[in-house]
């Protein structure tokens, strides 16, 4: 199988996993933040990073990112409730913070924004090491209103850091639509930092993946940061329980018609990468994997008091 075909299948697989995660978790937990409709950005970004690269994902898609980097799905799902089997044994939540052991820097608080700066710092570390490492930061369009976006991009530009910033632009921050969230387009902010900006169709997983990989390659060559505006739409509510009635159903339907999974499936078929039977097989396999992981996670135990570790707040103890 050609390299390209392998990549396309892997991208599809990750999109399917992302959607299955939404379905399975969303049914169990009204507080879950689905990435419905945004799977192309999730898969396009998180597939294909190198070992040693730093990944700083958006919270929406964090479990998929952790999974793509090699995390065990059952343990990741155990982190939704803080089970003892999760990567932090229940000390923290997996839906906003992936395991650091996979090179992931997640959200260690509820505050959106600072992770872009952590990504710049991870890129600075990579630059000091000079072994071609990069950092990839993904963030929401709403998050782009935070001053952290500005400080991180400017710092990265001035220090010529190997970091790629991708806006998972789903046109909403909770109920706030783009028009009320930001003047101008996110992509147009790149020029103000002297950084290349690229608008991509965020419903086309290949377009996203190629853009991200292109920017990463450029960063690896020492040519500095880039900003990608991956334009898509949040088809679901902000949370699983959010009816999202602050926008028209026509708008939602219009975007549903551009479903990234359907689009890529059509391409796989038309380019002869997979036939209908193989596609169905893939779907079934992913579905079974996610469901099995969820069953395991749900039956796992909660942590005991030994996990609390009031004397383990500092590295080195006390």
């Amino acid at each position, binding site marked *: 199988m050609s390299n390209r075909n392998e990549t396309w299948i892997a991208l599809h697989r990750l999109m399917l996993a992302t959607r299955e995660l939404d379905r399975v978790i969303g049914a169990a937990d009204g507080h879950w933040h689905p990435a419905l409709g945004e799977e192309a950005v999730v898969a396009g970004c998180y597939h294909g990073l190198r070992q040693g690269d730093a990944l700083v994902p958006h919270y929406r898609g964090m479990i998929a990112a952790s999974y793509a980097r090699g995390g065990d799905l059952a343990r990741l799902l155990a982190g939704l409730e*803080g089970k003892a089997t999760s990567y932090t044994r*229940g000390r923290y939540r997996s839906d906003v913070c992936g395991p650091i052991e996979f090179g992931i820097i997640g959200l260690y608080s509820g505050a959106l924004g600072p992770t872009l700066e952590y990504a710049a710092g991870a890129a600075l570390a990579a630059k000091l090491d000079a072994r071609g490492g990069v950092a990839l930061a993904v963030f929401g369009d*709403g998050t782009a209103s935070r001053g952290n976006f500005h400080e991180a991009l400017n710092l990265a530009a001035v220090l010529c850091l190997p970091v790629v910033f991708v806006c998972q632009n789903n046109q909403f921050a*909770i109920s706030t639509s783009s028009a009320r969230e*930001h003047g101008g387009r996110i992509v147009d902010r790149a020029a103000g930092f002297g950084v290349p900006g690229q608008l991509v169709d965020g419903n086309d997983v290949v377009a996203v993946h190629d853009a991200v990989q292109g920017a990463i390659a450029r960063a690896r060559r020492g040519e500095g940061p880039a900003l990608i505006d991956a334009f898509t739409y949040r088809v679901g509510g902000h949370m699983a329980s959010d009816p999202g009635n602050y926008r028209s159903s026509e708008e939602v339907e219009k975007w549903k018609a551009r479903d990234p999974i359907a689009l890529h499936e059509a391409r796989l078929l038309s380019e002869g990468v997979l036939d209908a039977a193989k596609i169905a097989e893939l779907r079934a396999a992913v579905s079974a994997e996610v469901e099995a992981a969820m069953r395991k996670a749900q039956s796992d135990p909660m*942590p005991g008091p030994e*996990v609390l570790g*009031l004397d383990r707040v500092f590295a080195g103890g006390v």
Partner: protein
Amino acid sequence: MARQTMQQAVVAGIAEEMRRDAGVFIMGLDIGQFGGPLNSCKGLWEEFGAARVIDTPISEGGIVGAGVGAALMGKRPIVDIMFLEYLGLVLQQLGCDGGAMHYYSDGKARVPLVVRAKFGVGPYHGHAYDYHAWVAHLPGIKVAMPSNARDAKGMVKAAIRDDNPVLFLEHMGLYHGTRDEIPEGDIVVPLGEAKLVRAGRDVTVVAIGAMVRRAQLAGEALAEEGVEIEILDLRCIVPLDKERILSSVAKTGRMVVVSEAMKFCGSGAEIAAMVAEEGFRFLKAPIGRVATPNVPIPFARNLEKMIIPDENAIAAGVRRAMATG
């Protein structure tokens, strides 16, 4: 008389002030049509429209800063920053700058700004951090934290009418909980007056926010052991009602300070230190502090529960205070 939750009472108080004074407006994330997280602003947009109930981008520093600017120009802005967990994003504008302006301008600048924030361990999992001590450390800004719906209404109205910046804290565990009878008419609870919620001779228990109810539960359990605690609901950390605290300790000779905020350098330390300095002659026993230990709030529900003071922890603190002196 209306029976209202704390959420309803706060919104009702804001609405009354917005009706009274055209200079009052509110801004924040998702407070318009969406009604605010946990319905923190439910109904305001419908009544007052988008000009006075302003949805903003995710720019906490920007909107608190804009609140300071609008307040300096004579408005009475309310800024809803969603969660107290984001206090670190606005401290410069709200506290360092906003708190200093009146004094530094030799009394000419006024910053009648209310910043609202939800916090606390409760049914909503996350965003529980209580960092109010940071603001209490700064001059020129008040800190209010109601323990019940009636006070919440009266205190939010007082906060809006205050000519100083006020950090107004809404505990998520109390938010949609029990309903209180709220008297009709213009109830205003002055900022800086602690309330006696249980009289007792043995130990003064100083509590605030969600800890008040837990102290009351502890008080009932302790009464059965023959220990009568006196509970003060502090209501404000700034201004601090030193008189009521000291006069209660003068009577009981013992004090336990209860706090959901982390213990080290929390505002409970200030209360204990104040009494150790100004009320030492009354003290018969060590001043106890029952507080959340200094640890990042763990996520698993059962771990989380272990660190937040409950009625048992409070009662244990009281028993320790009774064991000496």
